[in-house]
């Protein structure tokens, strides 16, 4: 697996930038949130890739095994995922309220309505 080198990190950056692009460029608030999720998952992939040791195994102690992958990054990401869904839910709740208030979830239409008012 030597040739993999920095491949993981490059994929992470590509994914992160795709997520970033959706967040900046998409007009639809729900799609923006999905972009944010992609961005977030790319960070998860980075942490987990950093923790992997070639030839290591999952960090559950067992006899006869000496090389384990890094459990600390797993803990950090495990909690981040659940906190991530909780905050996404909060974001979606805000989107629903915006839809009730403005009748749309498209950013430019919301701005147009704000200007009229």
């Amino acid at each position: 697996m030597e040739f993999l080198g920095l491949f993981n990190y490059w994929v992470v950056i590509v994914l992160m930038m795709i997520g970033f692009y959706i967040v900046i460029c998409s007009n639809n608030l729900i799609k923006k949130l999905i972009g944010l999720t992609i961005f977030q998952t790319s960070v998860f992939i980075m942490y987990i890739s950093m923790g992997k040791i070639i030839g290591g195994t999952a960090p559950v102690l067992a006899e006869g095994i000496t090389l384990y992958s890094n459990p600390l990054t797993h803990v950090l990401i495990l909690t981040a995922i659940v906190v991530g869904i909780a905050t996404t839910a909060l974001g979606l709740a805000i989107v629903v309220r915006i839809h009730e208030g403005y009748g749309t979830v498209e950013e430019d239409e919301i701005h147009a309505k704000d200007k009229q008012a």
Partner: protein
Amino acid sequence: MESFVHVVILSMLVTTAIAIVRVKDLFAVTMLAGIYGLLSASFFVLMDAHDVAFTEAAVGAGISTLLILTTLSMTGRFEKASVKPQADYRPLLALALVTVTGALLIYGTQDMPGFGTADAPVQTHVVPRYLNDSATEIGIPNVVASILASYRGYDTFGEVVVIFTAGIGVLAMMMSKASSTPVVQTSLMSDHVVLRIVSKMLIPLIMLFALYVQFHGEYGPGGGFQAGVIFASAFILYAMLFGLTEARKVVNNTLVQLLSALGVLLYGSVGVVAMINGGSFLDYDFLSADPVAGQMLGILLVELGVGITVASVMIIIFFTFTARSQKAGESD
């Protein structure tokens, strides 16, 4: 072979992400996001992170997809094309910004240690201590669980409070109208015989599996976070099939709200009991005469608290969203 699978999964992730950018139908985007979650879960398995993969499969592919779909049912399925023609410069500008940022970040990766090296800085600081000493200090084989609940117990307490707060936030924003009148069911999935029978068989198994994940988390992959999400998915499945009114008979609003607070309270109380016994906050050594037994007891209780809070917050979020969307459907 393993590196082949590795490259394939990462390429599929990139492909899915590009498809999400291109597709305008938000229903398809949501499904692609679910696939993206499942692919990243498979990747985590490949990286030896079974606990993380568990969580990502339940959250990324399951609950988040459901929540986005429920939101879509209220806000409409299609992304509209931009109305203003002068907004056309935006994609190009954004593309330029993203390319420059990406190029800079890739330049930055040159300094990173190669993938999978055992002497990388991330492997050499606190981790050897966890791997070498946790067997004697904590006495449970799953190092992820001992770090999560004991070594970094403060952190996890913070995360649980964040989840609880997010649950309260969703309630505060969406409850106001939803709870005033009883919701009349419009369409039910319970006419579908196959769905109804199969899920009635599945729901007890899902719950049993959640309990296994909860209480076996010290010995294998699992723990409160995963178990909470899996447990909640059993109730969500029930609510999807038989309607919210039926599901509320099983778990009513007050009960889940109380339970979500109870989990945080249980976690905090374990810490306080340790303080009363003469230790510092969340120092489980003081819970029992034997430090290792104290650690086991502390981790069990703390994980239970996490599980209860996560499960109830997930149920609260889903029920609140569904109630709101049914209200929206009625007023149309």
